[in-house]
């Protein structure tokens, strides 16, 4: 019987780095989202651009916060 050990898809040692970078990118994109919302008027705002920025920001923030949880020892 051949046994194969199962390990995490992402090495444990990368978790802190991944958390920092993904959260940083996520926060920058979030900032650009709010800057866009504040600087453009209601008439010439494009919904597609808003939604793409929101999706990119939430993906980075979501995975960033997951890696933050993992690196702080909360293994979900």
């Amino acid at each position: 019987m051949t046994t194969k050990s199962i390990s995490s898809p992402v090495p444990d040692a990368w978790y802190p780095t991944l958390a920092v970078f993904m959260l940083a990118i996520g926060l920058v994109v979030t900032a650009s989202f709010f800057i866009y919302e504040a600087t453009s008027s209601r008439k010439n705002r494009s919904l597609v651009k808003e939604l793409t920025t929101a999706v990119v920001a939430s993906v980075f923030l979501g995975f960033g916060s997951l890696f933050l949880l993992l690196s702080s020892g909360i293994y979900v």
Partner: protein
Amino acid sequence: MGAMANFRKSIIFSVLFFYSMLLVKTLSSSPPSSNLQILTAERRIDLTSHIVRVYLTLKVENTGEAPAAEVLLAFSPAQFDHLALVKAAAAVGKKKKKTYLPLEVNPSDHPDAPNGTKYYSISLLKPLGKAESITLEILYMLTHSLEPFPAEISQSESQLVYYHDSAVILSPYHIKQQASMVKTPTSKVESFTRVEPTDRSGTELRYGPYEDRHPYSYSPVIIHLENNNAFAVVEELEREIEISHWGSIQVTEHYKLAHAGARHRGIFSRVEYQSRPSISGVSSFKHLLAELPPRVHSVYYRDDIGNISSSRLRTNSKKSELLIEPRYPLFGGWKATFIIGYGVPLQDFLFESDGGSRYLNYTFGCPLSETVVDKLTIKVVLPEGSKNPSAKAPFTVEQSMETKYSYLDVIGRTVVVLEKKNVVPEHNVPFQVYYNFNPMFMLAEPLMLVSAFFLFFIACIAYLHMDLSIRK
């Protein structure tokens, strides 16, 4: 005065048992299969710890015509209740090249047994033919079998215990020749029942050799000896093993530890305990050693108050050793509750089997050395989305299922609960929990976080697109 009374008591006891010894009971009733006989039997009883280990070497011969497939071991009802483990192996080969093949041992029921005798049956690998013989090595362990006497001692006294057994081996078969050796922890033995020939030298007590004993021969003996070892008993141990496919297994162990020796009487003087450790509190213990897996990380040791700082962790490539000191030394009857927790890397314990299912391979039992666990509960918390869980252990355990909610859970995690009573260190063997898991379920947690953030952005967009002003 107390010592005098104890002395008198022990004299009365030994006289009583001298008389009872004269009434050596020889019960002759129909044994379950009387075609077997035991040529030589040697029994070594190890009383050096609070767990009684008995090593039995039997040379069994089949004198009948019909082949015998099983050999019965008999136990008195009192011993049977305290049995934690029975292991048997057959010795194969000549002296130098001797190898041992493990045999299956199961409790077996014989309602017509005399005096409520209980049995374990050893299944032989191949039936024993006519006039054939086999050598069996048997190990059985008894817990809670050393009865403290006196039952209460003060801080400066040494702990004395009674051990009850029979001078001749209880067996449903005729035993041609037998001898028993009892190993005591110190050479201090207050009294012991004599069944001639009996011999004592140093830390060894020898009963026998006795020749030609009938089936079910029994001659009770009492040995009153000194035993100052740590009578560490975990009354309840709950181990929770939580698997995360993101790379870690978290283990949390809840202990209810007790000293099961002679109860402490009178006051406890810390000054005396600290200044004269060789004579004060010899039966107490103040630290325990826990053996944890290698590559263990984030170890903690705490109780309800908070962190307990008196612990040491040593790690090497083979194992990790955690030396823990409870908040106070434990005397007879004292208890301590605490929690030990640690994390181990996932790849050391989680494997994929041929059928595509995953299994956890972890050690059963209690990591504390030389400790009896009265009730052990192991809870294996599988990741959310696991299917078809099943557990496999090398001995009988009670199984049940539960659901647990932890971080970022929606449907709850399946928990496999394994329960076993009367666990000794020899039960620290691997057990497996099999389950099916689709790796896509691992994305459930990050997607949950992503959708939470996305909902926030949608709310922001919706708010900024709405015109909530009253004035046009």
